[in-house]
């Protein structure tokens, strides 16, 4: 059974931005889209070990800070070289001003 975990407060993430969330020895990235929705993915780029939370959010794209690899953070889809492997995504819900993610 996957657990819902409190990742952050809604206000911790600016619009069209991302923050890092560490839990259980793993790292996640929590996104707030320009239309004020929240999403979660693995925290590291699938190309090399770089924190996506240091990257740039543009519309529905997260760009890795190390090699500028791009993913759609809503679907996890890799958008081309140098990233070839999709990013794992996690269900997200907002409850009482808190962003919760479901971690398997």
């Amino acid at each position, binding site marked *: 059974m996957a657990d819902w975990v409190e990742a952050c407060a809604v206000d911790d993430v600016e619009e069209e*931005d991302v923050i890092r969330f560490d839990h259980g020895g793993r790292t996640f990235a929590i996104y707030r889209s320009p239309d004020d929705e929240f999403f979660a993915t693995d925290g590291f780029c699938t*190309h*090399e*070990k770089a924190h996506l939370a240091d*990257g*740039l959010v*543009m519309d529905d794209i997260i*760009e890795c*800070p*190390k*090699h*500028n690899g*791009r993913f759609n953070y809503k679907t996890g889809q890799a958008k081309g*070289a*140098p990233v*070839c492997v999709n990013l794992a995504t996690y269900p997200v819900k907002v409850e009482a001003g808190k962003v919760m993610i479901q971690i398997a």
Partner: protein
Amino acid sequence: MAGTVKRDYSLVGESTRIAIETGLASAEWYHTDVPRKAIKELMQRSDGPAIRDTIIWMVAILGSAAGAIYFWGTWWCLPFFFVYGVLYGSSSDSRWHECGHGTAFRTRWMSDVVYQIASFMLMRNPVTWRWSHARHHTDTIIVGRDAEIAVMRPPDLLRAALAFTGILDFRYSLPALVRQAFGKLTPDEKSYVPEMEQHKAVIAARWHIAIYIATVALAVFMRSWIPVVLIGVPRLYGTWHMVLTGLLQHIGLADNVVDHRLNTRTVYMNPISRFIYWNMNYHVEHHMFPMVPYHALPKLHELIKHDLPEPNPSMWHAYREVWPVLFRQLKYEDYFLKRELPLTARPYRGEFHEVNMSAAAE
């Protein structure tokens, strides 16, 4: 690294094994602390500056080509070829670079179009070079890992001098494209291009070769040298500015370290060179924060210069600094230039690298 160890620059050799075993490969690099708000602002993409610069670039290329054709057969064509050559053979490098990073434009397809055009001008396979440059950023000047080390140790000065003519690059790049067009990638190329991407490298090489064949066919048909002097050959006579600026990025500085302040150089340059080079003279800044577009690098420089070595005030100054280091490296290849940090900077940290500091000139 006690004593002089012979460097093995292949990407599948002894230095590669050592780099992986010692943790130099894919390591954690030093970064100057910059507040998220500030760096986020600097990372923002915009089409405006790159569209403006690309229009100027294209107009200058087409204008100089038109002048060269118009004055063909007279001495007056030479200044036009001079300009055309630099735009074709040198400024294409910075366009290739910025569009490869995807930072020049906000709109992705614009970056991709300019990237493909610039790759062709440079005789670079757009696929293999994209991956080699990713490796260059992961493992900057890590021997056995970085595929883009311009001057290896001990330095081959004749080779470095010939680089200004483009002859060596031409001699390597064209046969490499032909080889790749026949479906053959070297072990080094296979080490940094993922298997699933390798077929794309072959297709790209075939397109490039097809265009060169068409160019030669046109020249034969027209019974004129003009097509080849405008397509392909500028890689020879116009490459000098790319080498002049690009060599300074890392030459004479430390290798096998994980702090860009030790292995990368920022040089102040004149506005024309900065246009041709798209501000890559702010090279420490670029390596520390590759997400920042070329047009925002001067602002980034102002923000973090307190933590970086003093930039060289000119290319001339930088080359004067480099020459003695290269000559010393001929006899003692561990020798390098360790650049002084300002008092406001965080000091170089021993745990970040294993370089033999006793080999450093300060």
